[in-house]
């Protein structure tokens, strides 16, 4: 769009929308960082056609998307309890609430945003790179991973607030640290204190499918999700949802 074709009021409105959707994803990212994935549902639309696309498929609808976040929350709670038991000299006497997330981090900062606001001001689209590190508590204890991912999001205006309608969270790299990015990950020695982590399970995606394979030396070249382009209405452009085909360039 050429700014010369818009009034200053129109440009300011669009600037505020761009700021708002970037703030939403900033808060989304920070929620990971402080292990509050269970609260991520607040950023989503109340519609029942919401969908979250991960490398292994789509979580479709309120129950599936919120169920996925609840599973992360449950894993955090279990890991916190086991870490507290493993380090009683440091953590004894703290409440369950104080211990929640202890010794864990999901640092998923975002940058390189490309945002487009619809001409009708009822929707917006954004693409970001995640370049982070995530520490998972495994049956071997805490283990750190590199995380390079793409977040691609459709936003809609719902009762005056910007909400996520569709989101792709696709890992390009999800690799244990200390290894080359195509090295095999040798098994780590089990720590009996964390054996209970073997019980962690996640709900299967509503629609299992391969949206993106993480990097391998025998993988076809896989670009980022499609970049947002100027558009009039959400119905007239591609979407980051199941029917959009935008997860792979």
């Amino acid at each position: 769009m050429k700014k010369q074709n818009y009034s200053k009021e129109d440009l300011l409105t669009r600037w505020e929308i761009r700021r708002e959707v970037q703030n939403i994803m900033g808060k989304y990212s920070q929620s990971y960082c402080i292990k509050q994935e269970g609260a991520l549902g607040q950023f989503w639309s109340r519609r029942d056609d919401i969908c979250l696309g991960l490398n292994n498929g789509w979580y479709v609808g309120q129950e599936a998307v919120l169920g996925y976040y609840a599973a992360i929350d449950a894993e955090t709670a279990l890991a916190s309890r086991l870490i507290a038991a493993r380090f009683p000299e440091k953590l004894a006497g703290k409440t369950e609430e104080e211990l929640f997330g202890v010794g864990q981090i999901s640092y998923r900062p975002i940058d390189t945003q490309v945002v487009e606001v619809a001409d009708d001001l009822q929707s917006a689209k954004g693409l970001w790179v995640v370049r982070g590190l995530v520490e998972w508590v495994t049956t071997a204890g805490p283990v750190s991973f590199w995380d390079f991912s793409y977040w691609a999001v459709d936003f809609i205006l719902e009762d005056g607030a910007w909400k996520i309608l569709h989101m792709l969270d696709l890992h390009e790299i999800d690799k244990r640290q200390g290894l080359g990015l195509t090295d095999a990950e040798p098994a780590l020695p089990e720590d009996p204190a964390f054996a209970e982590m073997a019980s962690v399970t996640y709900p299967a995606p509503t629609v299992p499918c391969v949206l993106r394979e993480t990097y391998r030396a025998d993988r076809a070249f896989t670009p980022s999700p499609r970049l947002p382009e100027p558009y009039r209405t959400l119905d007239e452009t591609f979407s980051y949802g199941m029917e959009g085909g935008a997860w792979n360039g």
Partner: protein
Amino acid sequence: MADANRTLTQEEQVWRLWDKEEIKDLLNRFAYYTANNDRRRAITELWVAGDENRSTASLGYNNGYYTGLDNIIAHYVVDAEARGFEALSAYSGVAQTEDNLGYGCSFVHTMNTPYIEVAGNGRTAKYIGYDCGLSCIGSPDGSSDSNFTFAKVYADLIQEDGVWKIWHLLIAYDHIIPAGISYGDLDPEAPWGADSVERACGDPTVRDVAYDALYGWVDVWERLPRPYYSFDNAKAYTADGKPACYKIGLYK
């Protein structure tokens, strides 16, 4: 210089706000297009197109500058494609076609921490950002040459028909570091991966020390955008724009 002290109208102030959004968008798209091997598109959509600006366009790396858009295309598009075919040739079972370029590879480029100054006359702008990226070239045996890349990105932008375009770009690598090695094993005299940097930079039109990572602390301070009224070639992110690192003899 009467114009330099003129108070901007409200409309002009909003345009300045919007200018910075457009410039961030421009550089961010450049990061995605480069990582996606969409390099011709990057040239067509994001770089200058006017005859005069094409002739003065510049793409710099640590070891010098590609000058003029034709030389930039030869390096950034044509040579990159040739390197892609060279990497693909290792995979004898994969058709050697343009569609398969990038097979076994992963590239990620980012632009974070942007800082922008728009000229007082509104015609040009200066940008600094940082690219924390990834470059992986695979081999048929399943291994890969995987590196984390770290580079400052400086840019002079110019408006053509009211649209911001990349005019001068300087990609100053701080490190290209292999993933999965002990950093204590790196060469202490060249911990940034000098060979990898040289490969990434190629053979520029003007050979020069455009950036030496040993003196990054001087370079960043000197090259940071500062408020300015009109473009000054002596401060451009080109072979003509020499920061103090040269004057005090750090860059030889």
